[in-house]
């Protein structure tokens, strides 16, 4: 299967690879939301770290991914899109937008779903750490 140029580019030059600390470190940080989705036996695990400032804006995002080329590209793209978005805006990112941007073939749609899931998981973690309901809008966005 031939991948689109964008997938190949993200694969060869992944954006924002990394983390904001070890799993133990980030578990303690209230400004960091952690999302880990997938499973090794399924062949893909995505880890997303988001750093949220006091205004509820995602200042920085880092990913790590065990998975195929399109899984890596989907998570790399997600970090690009997340930076500078408020937590609520981030929740509007849909897997179909990732599919479109990367021209993913149907067999790779689950990679984009995983990326969307990792965003949701990271935000839920951030909210939980800060005593907010996981699925409601943040305070900043209710204005």
């Amino acid at each position, binding site marked *: 299967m031939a*991948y689109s140029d964008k997938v*190949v580019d993200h*694969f060869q030059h*992944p954006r924002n*690879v990394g*983390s904001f600390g*070890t*799993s*133990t470190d980030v578990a303690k940080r209230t400004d960091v939301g952690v999302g*880990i*989705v*997938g*499973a*090794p*036996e*399924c*062949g*893909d*695990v*995505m*880890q997303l770290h988001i750093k949220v400032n006091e205004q509820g804006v995602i200042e920085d995002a880092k*990913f*790590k*991914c*065990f*998975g*195929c*080329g399109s*899984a*890596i590209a989907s998570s790399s793209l997600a970090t690009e899109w997340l930076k500078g978005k408020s937590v609520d805006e981030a929740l509007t990112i849909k897997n179909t937008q990732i599919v479109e941007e990367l021209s993913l073939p149907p*067999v790779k749609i*689950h990679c984009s*779903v*995983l990326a969307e*899931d990792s965003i949701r998981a990271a935000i839920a973690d951030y909210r939980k750490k800060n005593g907010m309901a996981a699925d409601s809008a943040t305070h900043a966005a209710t204005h």
Partner: protein
Amino acid sequence: MALKLPIYFDHAATTRCDPRVVEAMLPYFSEKFGNSSSRNHKFGWESEDGVELAREQSAALIGANPKEIIFTSGATESNNLAIKGAAEIYAKAPAGQTGRGHIISAIHEHKAVLDPCKRLQREGFEVTFLAPGTDGVITADMVAAAIRPDTILVSIMWANNEIGVINEIPQIGKLCHDKEIVFHTDATQWVGKMPTDVERDHIDLLSWSGHKIYGPKGVGALFVRRRKPRIRLEAIIDGGGHERGMRSGTLNVTGIVGFGKACELCQHEMEHERERVVKFRRKLETELSRRIEVTQVNGHAEKRLPHVTNISFGFVEGESLMMGVKDIACSSGSACTSASLEPSYVLKGLGVGDELAHSSLRLSLGRWTTEEEVDFAIEQIVAAVEHLRLMSPLFDLHKEGVDISKIQWQAH
């Protein structure tokens, strides 16, 4: 000499047709175009001569009599003819009934053996699929333990296509002969690479294919033993009664001529070739294991084909690894590279965890592989694994000392 990229390390999938084979085939397209069954003119005779020479060359490669060679369209057809053809003849009860007889095969056989066996299961035969140990080897003891009074057929591949592991074929053959059970082996990956003697090794039925041995695609052969014991088969393709009535259809003369030439070349060059590629395979395995931590060569350490290696690199996924080694044409057991989105059933059959099955590469070497290519591949694989591990959350957890198998993953 500059390296020509990409390099081809997928010889277990198919091989380049040897130019000497092509040369032998060329006259049989437009000059010697006769139907080898035309008994009354020169055109027919010269085609028949070509086919009969190929029959001798093929038989010589496996220590058979030329009369014991049936030409087919490839190993898939040979396997189908052997398994379904023998089951039909040696059945204990007529079609439409259950209890028609017992067949023994193994879970990590090629689909061209598994699927005919499964069809026979639906048609009233019972099939035992043996599971190998973690080394991937099917032993004579495993077969002996599965034999029943109603066992009619055993089909065990000589060497596995994904991991290159060699089964105890001569011993299984001997066992089957002692028990008067028909013995078939899919020798697609073995013949042409390793010395074969159907007499010494007690084989009744043996399948192989042209395109794995530097011959053309679309042609293969089935060895059918003629004496001690004489094996009978029910044809699956009926028609003009070609190939002793076992495989009707005008012979693919051009392909068969190429197949024969390919067999002859293998016979002459096998020993030298084996020594060369086994050295390269060992270098690949040793260097990659030395330079990359958490690397596992899958299958038995010694009982393996000279030219095939299957290696799992922990914490990286196979399809992305293949993207990373873009200048090396090879295969992976990763789900993402298969149509079914399931990781390799062969590696799973060995008890290699799903995670390591996703992380595997199969590298298979061949007649034109050079040491320069091997060195290049080592460097590119090392670089790709490093690139991917920098991105791998699993590698981080490993470095933190977390046991990944103990984590509760939320599978999607």
